């Protein structure tokens, strides 16, 4: 019996839950003020999230998937990706999208049941919110393949949840990433639950990072509640991929502090104590404590930020509310580049019917 191969999975953290440094910080963190924009983004995310949940409760949007607790992951990724890179998000990635430049009122449109929520004119190569679990992973492999073929120094970064790692699509895509050494970075947001199913029931794998071993690609774990760690680990993976060094699978450990979506009731399957414990780990307080300790952030700035965030949220809500409702004809407008003649009568009948409806409601 001989040993054919050995592997190890590393875990990176710089700030502990109390915001104390546990290791020498990476160079980008040597000036703590440089991380203030990330911190601001995280606070904006949380404010937008709270508003979206409230809007669902009052019937202004439909079911909504909260970002509560994953702000460090979203900010860390958003901070290191370049404009020309391509993000392939799941449904829970409105935070990263905001940092990609996408106006957050699109998030409201999306969960408000409107396709225009996926238009993203500000980041036109990014993929839309992806609801079917894991199916964006092969897309990411295809995007990365195109980049590599054209010798572009660009990266495809795909995000998914812990549950998604059980899907064949996830595995097929990371395996393909390895086979062709694609500029692909996959970030698994391990928030410990796939709706009600806890992480340990998804897989006997001790870590989700080690799923990358099956694909023969670089893989590691990072504390997803530590902005500095996320920025560091994702940044290195993205730059390695950009430089032709191949794909990476990252597992970012965090916790879903919200219900799965507004349609879910997490008290059915997890305890109040567990939730309380996890609140002690959350990323915003952690980063703020550190910034405060470093003298890079003041209570006054915090107050001003809260105001800014509230104003921004209000603006986004207004932009959402001001968007005129979609017309039924939208259903056929972008179905094909040019609607085939065979369906013209359907589009026409649809318009007629909706005009009749309008008349009916007017009359």
């Amino acid at each position: 019996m001989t040993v054919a191969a050995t592997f190890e999975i590393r875990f990176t953290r710089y700030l502990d839950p109390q915001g104390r440094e546990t290791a020498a910080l990476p160079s980008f963190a040597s000036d703590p003020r440089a991380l203030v924009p990330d911190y601001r983004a995280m606070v904006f995310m949380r404010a937008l999230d709270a508003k979206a949940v409230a809007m669902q409760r009052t019937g202004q949007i439909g079911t909504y998937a909260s970002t509560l607790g994953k702000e460090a992951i979203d900010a860390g990724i958003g901070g290191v990706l370049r404009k020309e890179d391509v993000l392939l998000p799941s449904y829970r990635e409105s935070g990263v999208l905001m940092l990609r430049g996408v106006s957050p009122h699109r998030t409201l449109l999306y969960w408000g049941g409107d396709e225009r929520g996926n238009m993203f004119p500000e980041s036109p190569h990014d993929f839309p919110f992806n609801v079917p679990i894991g199916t964006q992973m092969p897309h990411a492999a295809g995007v990365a393949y195109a980049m590599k073929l054209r010798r572009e120094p660009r990266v495809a970064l795909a995000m998914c949840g812990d549950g998604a790692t059980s899907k064949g699509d996830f595995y097929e895509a990371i395996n393909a990433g390895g086979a062709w050494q694609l500029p692909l970075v996959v970030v698994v947001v391990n928030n410990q639950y796939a709706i009600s199913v806890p992480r340990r029931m998804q897989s006997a794998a001790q870590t989700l990072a080690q799923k990358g071993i099956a694909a023969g690609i670089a893989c590691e774990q990072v504390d997803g509640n530590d902005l500095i760690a996320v920025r560091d680990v994702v940044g290195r993976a993205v730059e390695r991929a950009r430089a032709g060094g191949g794909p990476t699978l990252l597992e970012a450990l965090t916790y879903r502090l919200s219900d799965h979506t507004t349609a879910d009731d997490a008290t059915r399957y997890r305890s109040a104590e567990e939730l309380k414990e996890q609140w002690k780990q959350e990323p915003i307080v952690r980063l703020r404590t550190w910034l405060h300790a470093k003298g890079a952030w003041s209570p006054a700035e915090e107050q001003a930020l809260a105001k800014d965030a509230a104003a921004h949220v209000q603006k986004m809500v207004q932009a959402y509310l001001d968007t005129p409702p979609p017309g039924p004809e939208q259903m056929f407008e972008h179905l094909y580049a040019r609607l085939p003649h065979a369906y013209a009568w359907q589009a026409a009948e649809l318009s007629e019917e909706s005009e009749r409806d309008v008349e009916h409601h007017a009359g």
Partner: protein
Amino acid sequence: MSNITLVEGINLALARAMEDDDRVVMIGEDVGVNGGVFRATAGLQQRFGPERVADTPLAEGLIAGMAVGMAAEGLRPVAEIQFAGFAYAAIDQILNHAGRLRHRTQGRLSCPMVLRTPCGAGIHAPEHHSESPEAMFAHIPGIRVVYPSSPAKAYGLLLAAIADPDPVVFLEPSRLYRKFKEEVEDDGEPLPLDKAFVVREGTDVTLVAWGAMLHESLKAADELAAEGHFAEVIDLATLKPIDYDTVLASVKKTGRCVVVTEAPRTASLASEISANISEQALLSLLAPVARVTAWDTVTPMFRLEEHYMPNSTRIAAAARKVLEYQ
């Protein structure tokens, strides 16, 4: 006898089947402690334990494929796909294996499994949560496809599906899950599979529908009745195989027919039924059969779903055209 909703009818049938037959097991995402995202399996894990009501890893192909293996080994798996939009990943297993196992082993192995999934639009759900894949399943040889329209039908047909020795795809109209209640007796009595139900007798036109569209058709029948036209309304219930005896008998009586489906028009089950009626009852037809269907477009997000799904207005309008046809 209790007055229950459709999803409670499902739950009651599942509990009854598990009680009566040790071989019945549930698998799916969130079917355990959470009781299913629609609560269809609520209470079952508490009652029958985590081995018989098991949360699976998140993988629809796995769920369908495991059910094939379990069924071949003598269990009676009832597998839940959380929404029909995610059932497409299970088609490979249903078509290449579930529907074939008995035939390709010449009767040695069989596949008594049920694949349940909520489907259809109308509940303001997120993207990909409002699909109607019935035609794809109905095209697959060797399986049955069942689609209940009421709490009592859900109860009786699901019991029949679980007891059936062959694979059954059981499509549940999520829009009806909590829409209305009905008295259901928990007597373990299955309803017949492969049978359509005449739910309203009439003389002038036959409306063929299933699931949520049955209720739109009944509403349309009310509208028509107010105008003096009496529609016979058929609940197809089993979509594969289709009970053409019942359908044709009705059309031969009324001479006119409208077939309704929530799915896109082309190659839909409405096309199948319309074709068969026209071929088998041409001489009885006083007007062309009409199909009322969703458009041949992507299921839109919910702001437009009302314009996508057929409704009683469109059904009644189609029926009027058919009735006016000379």
